[in-house]
């Protein structure tokens, strides 16, 4: 999508969280402190705007851990660009939350 409407703060939070490595809805909730009723609809809208794509966890991994597989989200190229633009506009966005420790 060439042009996207100005991002809401929620969307910005979500994009930034995804950028920092938080991939699942629940993780994003935890790190942003926003309620689930805000996070998930925002994810849907961002996906419709093609700023975000989603995929499913590898079946194998989930089965190994004995739980249903999770849906994880990723920034698209446009999403990354949008986020960079937003960072330029809002200097503090980059320091919203720390990078996820890769464990």
């Amino acid at each position, binding site marked *: 999508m060439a042009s996207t409407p100005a991002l809401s703060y929620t969307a910005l939070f979500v994009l930034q969280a995804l950028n920092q490595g938080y991939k*699942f*809805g*629940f993780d994003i*909730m935890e790190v942003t402190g926003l*309620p*689930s*009723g*805000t*996070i*998930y*609809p925002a994810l*849907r*809208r961002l996906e*419709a705007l093609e700023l975000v794509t989603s995929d499913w966890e590898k079946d194998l991994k989930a089965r190994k851990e004995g*739980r*249903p*597989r*999770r*849906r994880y989200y990723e920034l698209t190229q446009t999403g990354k660009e949008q986020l960079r633009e937003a960072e330029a506009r809002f200097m503090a966005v980059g320091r919203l939350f720390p990078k996820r420790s890769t464990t």
Partner: protein
Amino acid sequence: MALTRLVLWLMSRIVPAAARQRWLEEWTAESRYGGRRMLPGALPDAWALRALARNEAASPPRPSLFHALDQDVRYALRTFGAGRSFAIGVIGSLAIGIGVTTLAFSLVNASMFRPLPEIRAEEELVQVQLGDRPTQGAWFQTAWADFEVLRDGITAVDDLSIAHEANFAVAPGGEHEPRTSAGLIVSSNYFDVLGARSTLGRFFRPEEDAAPWGQPAVVISHNYWQRYLAGDSNVLQRTLNVNGADLPIIGVAPEGFSGIYARSGIQIWVTFALSDLVFRDAAGRPIAARDAPPFRTTIVGRLKPSATIQQGQAQAAGLAPALAGMRERGIKRLFVRVQPLRIVEPTTDAVRALALMAVPLIVLAIACVNAANLLLARATRRSGDWLVRLALGASRWRLIRQLLVESLLLALGGAALGLVLCFWARSFVENQVVGEILIDGNVLLFVLAAAIATALIFGLGPALSVTRAAVSRAPEAGRFMRGPFGSRTRSALVMLQAALCIGLLATGAQFTKTLQTLWDDGLPEPEQFLAVSIDVDQLRYDRKQSDAFYDGLLARVQELPQVEAAALTNGTVANMLTGLVTSRGGSVSAPGSAGGPIDGTLMTYTTAGFFETMGLPLVAGRTFVSGEHRDLPRSVIVNQAFVARAFGQDPLGRVVRLTTGREGGERTSVDTMVVGVFAPPEGQPIFSQLPNVFYPGPLIHEPARDLLVRFNGDAGAVSAAIRTIVATMDARLPIGLIATGEDLRRRRNVLDYTLAQTVTVLGVIALMLAAAGLYGVVSYMVTLRQKEIGIRIALGAEGASVLKMIVRQSIVPVLVGCVLGSAGAVVVAFLVRSRLHGVSQMDPASIAGAALLLLVTMVVASLVPARRAARVDPIQVLRTE
């Protein structure tokens, strides 16, 4: 856990089926981490998915009704540029129609919707009148004593002012000759009550209205200041000669101010302290207003802020018995009316406005029909475009919108041009019509409304019918494009136009003819006849001075080389000629025969030469001789109507007793002998139907007389010569009226004259419009049918027969319209019978004449394009196919 799953499953019903399974899976997984507190977020998420799905389904977004309107405008302008004659035709027609209607509306606007100029808070003003009924009905004249009772008795009104209108002889000095000017004698509070502010100087102070001639002063109008005193800024140091008295000018009223009657043309104001400039006692001597019998007044006051008009009315009602008792003869029914100055009656006003605008609206209707016809013809030719656009997916609304945009642009163009025409015709119309034209915001609004309304009227019909046809006939495009589509509608429009046109023409012709009958006053060669009114009373001449003045005037005028005959009368003749029959108080009896007074006899004082001047032939006896009026008259000349009433036959030598003079004043009775009988021409209403007696010398003081002159030559030169004579005799004396017989006739029927003239002019305009419209339609028809005509000619049809066919086909609807319009004209004639003054309600000759004129014009209008059709080259046409 099971509960969470159940809830999630229920919520998943909201999610569109395609995404449901995945949604459920994701939330099941997420709730493993977040637990039940996740659940409240699931519901908005489900709704968000649903909304997204719905949006995607509804694509592409629906364009609004006015999407890409600028395209339509640009396209319309481009096509107008390409087909200029079409645009010029439509805009020209509409400009005439809208211009005429706007002109009429500006007249209505000036007379009905404008607040009185320079008056503060008009709605607080109340008018007090004495009358024989509580609200409407006759009003009584007011004496000064009445005014004092009213002023002191009605406390709900702040301050009551009184005004009396009169004509003054005003001499500004310099190169301007003295003129009779309308003026008001007012109480000193007059300007304060109305809330007017002076342009220069000040208005009256109470002391200027206190003692008679204590501090004489005059206020002049802005118009008078500019016109006769050259806008002199030192005007306050000057004096103005009013009825022979030099009065210091103390102030100039604001521009446009003329009291509570708009455009009454008041030029000067003086206070009641100077009322003996105008008021006269029974013997004709100057008198103060407070001692005079009741006179015409305008009593106006401003309601106190705390008071209501009902309180004022109640107080006034309490005064009525006292006022009735003050009257000499004791009036039984006397009411004091306290009414708002301006009574707004929207319904009545609207009806009046519509009545005034009816005829212009018919012209506008014709212009609309014209435009509709041209638009229809053009739209038919463009049917190919419509089909292509429909095929490419245009909605019918889009086509209708295109046509509406085009008609709106044309209408706006027409309105703009109409407004220009209106400005241009303004001064001309103001001179012809009694009334003023006011072009202001109201008028601009009206023009805009008229443009939009006409655009809808002439644009919507063609738009609907063309697009309907385009939609329904889409499959057989070829036939539709060339077929005689819309010809029925077009014929109907041509018919309507012809009907409206003939209605106007015939009505105008009937009016004009009626006026010619009415104008017949028996005056031969009215353009060689002058009536000059002079009133030396304004300068307070006594009887001796007055007689000497008029003798001198008559002698000098008779010496003018162009003058064939001249005579003086006591002012009744010019009145008779202007339709105002007046006779001074007096009676005529024939002592020798019947006895009692002969009622309704008109007594007129004349000098020798009167019958020659008026062109009234004597049938018996002699006319007056010069000098016969030196002393009391001893001879009279009568008409046949008087002979029939008084003597029956043998009138010469019989005795007629004249009694004249006002009650309580100078009264004279004299026995005279009939020396001549005159015979007025047939049909002359006043001199033939009413008994008339003419006597050769004034019986009483006659300060106001008319000089009647029959001359040979240029009326302007004779008037100028007479003006010079009057000026050399008394430079202060104004001439009240100087008019030819022709002018008098026009003046007598000024309203009818204006109406007839207007209807006729509009009828001619309508005729031109209709002819232009028919020309346009036939031209288009010929263009459309070019192929058909080419085939006809190829098959052996002669040019003449093609010509005949085209003219015949275009004239048929005109003929039908003629019949309908004539019927309409007859109906109109019956409806306005009251204005036609009893002359036969229907005039077949007028209607036939109008029909003939219309037919000839229309045949000519259709002949031009028909000739083009006859010259079609079949080879050319068939080759291009």
